């Protein structure tokens, strides 16, 4: 038996290193290509008009998607209005009243499974609940669909934030005679606020790019919507529509819209990261 590394073993190691590096490069190529194309093609079409003007008809030059930006904001606002209270209240129950119980595990299981349900299913659900009831495709239906997508993220981050508040802080409040509600609303929630805010913005960023559920709930609108019970334009649906269009001007606008969404996600991710890093109390 010799105690030198056999040349075969060394060669195998070198081969595997090359293979792994190859994998990394092969995958890096498309991933960076996506970022690069979005930035370069998006920047070249960027102008002030895209924020203010309406989508152009085929073969027309110029135009923008002011209505889709406003529409996306509207739908996201509705989604946040529904998902934030639901997510935070449920997180409070799981973290403050039911910590470590079977029920808490049950809620966590439900949320994990919910977060794996395809987004288009949320769209079908919102269609069945809202569109069939109100009789029209609408911003409200889109908001409901996105809200269900956001709830798991909001609940999870809120629960994590609440759990990171030390037990001693709660005992201090209870020790001066605070009720549970006073302890949670005035001491625990404010302390957990940074991470809850991070969770809400992350979930909004994720929802901002969701297309499939909006395609079958909010539909699209070439003009500004006159209320939340009407079909409404959104950025992701605009990208989808214009990506399939044979007109260059519309395709260019799809890239600009993609750049806006990716930039939004990038900013939110960076802000959320630095927020999480600074998250020591006080």
């Amino acid at each position, binding site marked *: 038996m010799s105690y030198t590394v056999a040349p075969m073993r060394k060669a195998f190691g070198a081969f595997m290193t090359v293979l792994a590096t190859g994998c990394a490069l092969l995958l890096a190529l498309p991933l960076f290509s996506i970022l690069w194309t979005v930035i370069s093609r998006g920047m070249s079409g960027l102008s002030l008009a895209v924020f203010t003007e309406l989508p152009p008809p085929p073969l027309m030059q110029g135009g923008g998607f002011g209505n889709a930006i406003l529409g996306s904001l509207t739908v996201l606002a509705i989604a946040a209005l529904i998902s934030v209270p639901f997510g935070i209240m449920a997180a409070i129950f799981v973290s403050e009243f039911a910590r470590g119980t079977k029920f808490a595990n049950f809620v966590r299981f439900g949320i994990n499974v919910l977060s794996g349900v395809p987004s288009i299913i949320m769209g079908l659900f919102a269609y069945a609940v809202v569109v069939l009831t109100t009789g029209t495709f609408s911003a409200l239906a889109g908001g409901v669909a996105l809200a269900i997508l956001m709830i798991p993220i909001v609940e999870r981050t809120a629960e994590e934030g609440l759990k990171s508040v*030390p037990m*001693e*802080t*709660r*005992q*201090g*409040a*209870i*020790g*001066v*005679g*605070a*009720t549970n509600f*006073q302890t949670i609303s*005035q*001491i625990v929630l*404010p*302390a957990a606020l940074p991470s809850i805010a991070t969770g809400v913005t992350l979930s909004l960023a994720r929802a901002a790019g969701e297309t499939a559920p909006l395609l079958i709930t909010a539909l699209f609108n070439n003009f500004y919507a006159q209320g939340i019970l009407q079909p409404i334009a959104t950025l992701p649906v605009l990208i989808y529509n214009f990506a399939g269009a044979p007109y260059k001007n519309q395709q260019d606008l799809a890239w600009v819209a993609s750049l806006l969404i990716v930039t939004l996600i990038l900013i939110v991710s960076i802000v959320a990261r630095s927020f999480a890093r600074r998250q020591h*109390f*006080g």
Partner: protein
Amino acid sequence: MTVSNTQPNPSSAATSEVVISTEKVNIFYGAFHAVRDVYMDIARNQVTAFIGPSGCGKSTLLRCFNRLNDLIPSARVDGRIMFEGTDLYNKQTDPVEVRRRIGMVFQKPNPFPKSIYDNIAFGARINGFKGNMDELVERSLKRAALWDEVKDKLKQSGLSLSGGQQQRLCIARAIAIQPEVILMDEPCSALDPISTLRVEDLMHELKQQFTIIIVTHNMQQASRVADMTAFFNAEAAEGGGRFGYLVEYDRTQNIFNAPQQKSTQDYVSGRFG
């Protein structure tokens, strides 16, 4: 009868008047029997110290006095703990009301993640205080001997203070709601010696107006601050585990100079274990 119906009568406060008395108190965590058969009377306006080895149940008993053990779902208390003539574990007794009248200072300083001012004001606000808040904050901080150090930075976070200052802030927070009893669970164990001395001096001041019960690992501290001392010990229970019980309860000088029990003698002279 609820606790709030029996208002204390300050004029009749005598040094020997009993504030808290326990009768055959047994404390369980699930199936675990943590504390066995405690009978004791705590006197008003005195400092009572609980001493004893780790695991003897002294902190557990202390936390029963303001029903903080309610936070542990498996904890159960048998027997009676009377406060001003009312059973603390009576079904009608509201734990929130109990905690308003029996304050607590914890082992680790636990200021709220709020400003120094709001740390004091929080308890007063939730208890419906309607007087001059600035004055209450100032008065409480002065009595906790912290005012001079923080008067210029009341808006800063309570967490920006040093450990010793944080603990005095927690004491100020406790006295701001005017409890009758203050429970202190090893309040100096996380502090340096100088901060410890300041807190001990503070206890001498505070007992003019409050009844103080302190759990401590430090026998010198008990002999310095306490009027009465209770020694707890832990014993192996049959079937595994250990339970704590009260060995001896007497004036502090008697516990340290002329204990009746051999185990007390061993413990205070450091020949323990």
